[in-house]
Structure formats: C-alpha cells, structure tokens
C-alpha cells in the first residue's frame, strides 16, 4: 500500500514539474525570441516530442527488472539535468540568437537545446510507474488509468500554480531550482524506500 501511494505521489510530482517547466519556458525564451504565438508553438512542439521519446524510453527501461530504486534514479537524473538549465539558459540562447535570425527557428532551436533532455527523463516516469504497480493483466488498465489521472492532475496543478502564483512570488530561476530540488528529494525518498521494499519483494 505505501508503495502504491509513493509511486502515485511521484507520478504526480513528475506531471507537476513538466507543466511548470513548460510554462516557465515561455518566460525564459521571451527576452530573446519575443512572446509571439510561434514561440509558444516551439515550446509545445518540443515538449510533446520530448515526452513522446520519454514514453518510449520509460517503457523500454521498465522491461529490465524494474525496481523502486531505479524509478527513484529517474527522478534524480531528471533533477540533475534540469538544474543546469538555470545556468546554461542565457549563454545557450545568446548562442542561438547570434546564429539564427528568424525568431521562429531561433525559439525552436533554443527550446530543443534547453528542454529536451529534462523532459525526456520526466516523460519516462509514467510508463515506468505503470510497470511498478501492475500485478495482473486484469488490473493493468485501471492502474494505468489511475496513474494518468494522478500525473495529469499534477500537470494541471503545476500549470495553475506556476501561472497564477509562483511567478508572482518568485523569480523564474528560483522556481526551476525548486522543481529540481523537489525531483531530487522525491527520487531519494523512492530510492531509500526501495532499498527495503525492493529487497523484501
């Protein structure tokens, strides 16, 4: 039971981080590429592509003796990849800005450079979580449905919280850093619990 709760909680956190980051993406790109509709087009395209790749990778990883500890490792990796975004955003965008004149392709290139890696990792969470919780074929649909529900609820809350409140209270970098810290903490908790649980199972 705590295992089910924990995995769902982590799926929630993953969904939350993805959408919070996506919204902040608009803020991060605006100083260099503006806030025209195509900037949002670039961001959403890149997030969708990265999530798609993440789903494939997460599914493949789940084939190799899945454990809660490895699940936690995904979060830790996600956090470690996300945090440098804060440090590398400015030089990356400056580099792209100097080379690509058209802000459509500039924003697309910058989004690819900044957001693909963390979003691929965060995308791999959901299918892996499904594998951890499914025990029988009969309940597989319900388990997957519940996880989608929880992670999408997290996404909704991440979107709302970020756009309504976080940007009013905190700086963009602070929010991204906090997301990374949150992912790291979740990953470490999963790994710690996994040390007992995976061995017991």
């Amino acid at each position, binding site marked *: 039971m705590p295992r089910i709760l924990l995995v769902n909680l982590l799926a929630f956190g993953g969904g939350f981080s993805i959408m919070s980051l996506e919204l902040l993406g608009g803020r991060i790109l605006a100083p260099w590429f503006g806030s025209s509709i195509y900037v949002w087009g670039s961001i959403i395209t890149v997030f969708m592509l990265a999530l798609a790749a993440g789903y494939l990778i997460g599914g493949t990883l789940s084939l190799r003796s899945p454990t809660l500890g490895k699940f936690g490792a995904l979060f830790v990796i996600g956090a470690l990849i996300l945090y440098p975004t804060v440090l590398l955003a400015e030089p990356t965008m400056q580099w792209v800005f100097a080379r690509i004149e058209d802000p459509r392709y500039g924003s697309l290139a910058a989004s690819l450079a900044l957001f693909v890696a963390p979003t691929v990792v965060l995308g791999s969470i959901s299918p892996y979580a499904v594998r951890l919780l499914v025990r029988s074929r009969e309940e597989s649909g319900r388990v997957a449905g519940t996880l989608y529900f929880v992670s999408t609820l997290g996404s909704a809350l991440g979107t709302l919280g970020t756009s*309504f409140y976080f940007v009013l209270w905190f700086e963009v970098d602070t929010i991204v850093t906090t997301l990374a810290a949150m992912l790291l903490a979740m990953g470490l908790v999963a790994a710690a619990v996994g040390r007992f649980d995976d061995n017991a199972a």
Partner: protein
Amino acid sequence: MLRRVPLAFAVLLGVAMCADAAAEVIHRERSLYQTILITKTDRRLCMQFSVRAKRRSQSCMDVRDPQRLLFTYTRMTMAALLVKPDPARVLIAGLGGGTLPTALAELLPDVHIDVVEIDPAVYAAAQQYFGFAASDRVKVHVGDARVFVKRAGARGESYDIVILDAFGGDYIPEHLMTAEFLEESRALLGPDAVLAANTFATSGLYDHESETYRAVFGMFFNFRLLESDNRVVIAMNGPPPPKRVLRANAAAWAKRLRPYGVPIKEYPDRLSLAIDWDTAKRPLTDQYAPANLLQGD
C-alpha cells in the same frame, strides 16, 4: 444614496450607449494577437483592440483634420522633443494607426524612423484606413520589439529618440516592461538621446514600473496630466536637462506643433523629477515580471 447610484449608472450607460451608437464598426478582424476594430463616426476614425469585452481605442484620427493628434498621451509623447529637439533617427515600438510616425515624419523632413509592430494585421489596417505609408524614411518592421531592440543593439545602432508605445488592449507584453529590456533600449540611445514611454498612471503596476525605470535610468521625468490615465516617462542617458533648456526647446517647437494640437509650451512645467511612488516595490526583471498579475493590485 442607494437611489442615486442606479441613477448615475443609468446616465453613464446612456452616455456610453450614445457614444457607441454613433460609432459604426467598418472593419472587424481577429488577428493573431487581438481583435482589431475600425470604427467611424462622422468626425473620427478609430482603431480599437478588444482583447476581452472591454474596448480601448489605440489610435484615432480626425477625418476633417487628420494632422491633429486626438489622444492626450500621443501629444504627451511629443515631449521627447523637449529633450532632443533635432532627432535624426527615431525608433517607435508599436504602430497602431501610425499617427505618431506620420506626424514625426512630417515635422522632421530628414528624420529616419523605424517602427516595430508585432501584428501584421495592425500594419495592414493602418495602411488601409489611416493612410499610413511606409517610405524610405519610415520603415516598418513586423516583429517583436524585444527581438528588434536586441538585434539593433548587437549591430551597434543608435537612436536619438526611442518611443515605447507597445501596450495594446488589456494585456501587457511583460517582456517589454523589464529592467533588462529598458537596459537594452537604453543601450540604443545616443549621447544626448531620450526615451519616451507611454505607460500607466493608475494601476497597481505604477510603483513597480516606476522603480524599474529608476533602477535603469536613475532620475527620469515623470509626465502626467490630469486629463489622462496615462503617464509618459521621459528618460535619458545622462542627467536631465534643466528647465530653461526644456522651455527654450518648447518655444522653438510651439509653432510647428500647433497644427497637431500639441500645447508643448505647457509641458516643461509638468515634467517632474519627484518620486511619487512606493520605492519599496520590486522592480520588474526578466526573472520577475508578473506585470499583468500586478496590474490589478
């Protein structure tokens, strides 16, 4: 008291309805960024942006006297000439109906004007309904002002007057209000050049915005008139010129500005260096720019 309120409302509603009934919508278009309405009365042609239900006129033209600048804030923007009376290069962010670039091009026969407008539909409507025409001297660049300013800075360009007037409808482009954007705009200013920004005087944003300008420019002229909800920030690279210089420039410009309805001689005394805002409020930056959320405070 209770009886009076509905009465006042009824009167207001009646006035609003009369004003609306008289104006005919001759063009309505949903562009990428807003809904553009061109309205016409027998005297006035207006461009309005309606992002939500509320309409706000962006640009109006007196059909019988097209030179006359009908909006107080447009006239106030001309105060930039008090600081820089002989500009050779002007940058304007935000085209609207094009009344400002048209007036400046007429007033300054040798001036080169770059106008940045994000919405191609606004540019098209300005040409079609307001007789706005780009030329060798007046160039329109369709795109985001932030990107244009950054690129112009990278090319090492400079302007004598930079006018920020990109605040359309109800929504504020937040990346055009930050200290970083003002730094980039300031970098475009030549030695004795001036930046004039049409901004808000009444919303919860006033303090934050004022602090942002102060962080970037130090002292600046705050230009407010009772008749307008707008204020115009007049900021420069160096120290603000003394009042006698402003008055001398006003006197030199007064006659030429008369056909445009700009009472420029009244302006020098209205330019204030006083700090009339809460300096504890946080300046807006690229990291912290919730301008639209703060507006309602």
